[in-house]
């Protein structure tokens, strides 16, 4: 277990293993997203209340999932970097921030597009929308702090700390806005309960969620690899890669 952990900390090892995994994740993401999208948009039945406008959830729900998982991953990677001074974790945390912020923005935009026909307004001050907006602010804070430092090490540690402070705050923010105002429907897909919609509807959603996760993993790997090459450009293994290509 610990050997694996130490190995993971080595940029060279990560670069090699992620190079082998990347094509798999990319292909899986592409396949799942294409199948999921076609199924969701063309084959799945229309909702009896919302008609076809409900179909945006096939983008909205996975994006919202990833917005939250992305923050969690960023905070965990930041903590690992802060505690064990693992360079790779710093790089992962840094790569996570812009991707997570994009997914949060995507969730907000698709939510607005869905809200217009359903609630009759692009934006309502509902608990979930608001806490997603705050999550976006937290992401943007981390990105801003990351770019404010000239020293990479300092930037990584400072933004890791901020991400952790944000992580402690997320549940507080979530519950505070929830008690403040709620209009959004409860979660459509949970791990503990049977879904409230029929299988023809939730199956494509599940495929889309898995596809989004694969996509996230692939993009994260790409960003991390590029950042690693840039940081380690003076080391032997990077020079070797450049020479070979």
């Amino acid at each position, binding site marked *: 277990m610990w050997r694996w952990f130490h190995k993971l900390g080595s940029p060279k090892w990560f670069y090699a293993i992620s190079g082998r995994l990347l094509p798999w994740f990319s292909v899986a993401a592409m396949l799942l997203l294409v199948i999921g999208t076609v199924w969701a948009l063309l084959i799945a039945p229309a909702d009896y209340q919302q008609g076809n406008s409900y179909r945006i959830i096939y983008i909205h729900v996975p994006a919202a999932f990833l917005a939250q998982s992305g923050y969690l991953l960023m905070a965990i990677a930041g903590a690992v970097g*802060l505690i064990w001074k693992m360079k790779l974790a710093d790089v992962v945390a840094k790569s996570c921030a812009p991707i997570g912020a994009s997914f949060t923005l995507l969730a907000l935009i698709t939510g607005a597009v869905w809200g217009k026909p359903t609630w009759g307004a692009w934006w309502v001050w509902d608990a979930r929308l608001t806490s997603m907006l*705050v999550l976006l*602010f*937290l992401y*943007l*804070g981390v990105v*801003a*702090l990351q770019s*404010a*430092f000239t*020293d990479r*090490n*300092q930037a990584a*540690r*400072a933004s890791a*700390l*901020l991400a*952790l*402070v*944000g992580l*402690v*705050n997320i549940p*507080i*923010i979530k519950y*505070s*806005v929830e008690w*403040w105002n709620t209009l959004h429907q409860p979660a459509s897909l949970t791990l503990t309960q049977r879904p409230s919609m029929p299988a023809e509807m939730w199956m494509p959603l599940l495929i889309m969620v898995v596809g989004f996760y694969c996509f996230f993993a692939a993009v994260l790997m790409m960003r991390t690899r590029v950042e690693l090459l840039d940081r380690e450009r003076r080391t032997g293994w990077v020079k070797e890669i450049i020479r070979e290509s």
Partner: protein
Amino acid sequence: MTTQVQSAQSGVGKVGIFGAMIRRDMTAAFRHSSDLVNPLIFFVVVVTLFPLAVTPESAFLREIAPGVLWVSALLATLLSLDMLFQSDFQDGTLEQMLLSPQPLYSAILAKVATHWLLSGLPLTLLSPLLAMMLFLPAEGIKTLMLTLLIGTPVLSFIGAIGSALTVGLRKTGLLLSLLVLPLYIPVLIFASGAVQAATAGLPIAGHLALLGAILALTVVLAPLAIVTALRISLSG
């Protein structure tokens, strides 16, 4: 061993450093009294803008008063965060604090306490006047003061985390607000919610209990984050 001997000789214990820091920071702050007064003036000016921009009608102002007062207090606190670590960083005191054998925890606690005494407490004491100008009823004013009393220490603690993270950077003002304001949201919600409930004649114990819980949590956890942040900022 030597560190223990030294601290024993100088007679500065854990409580001693706390008291000494507060005394020192208070003295320094009162010598630059404009730094103390400016956030308060800012608070008054911002609150004044709302009747001018929205409407001077008393019924409407009464309704928005809790939110306006709390948002203004929050912004005033944000502007006063500069006085926490900035000057100590520039003259090297902060580095000495990190190097000293005294527990950093008490020193940080003292710094945040001073900040609250010089920003949160005056804001709380000034708030009834402005609340009256916004036609907040007596019950609301009492609750407003109570929420400010519980809530502004949280603002000082969370603000200190952001301030410690950005202390070594050049242009911090905008970045600091970007980092800190989202973290202020729960306090804002519960505090203005309590004042609104009080003016509507509803019970406020729940809101106050939650504010108190947030305060307890920040008093315990924030100093750790502040210490870590200071170490990061000064490591460069």
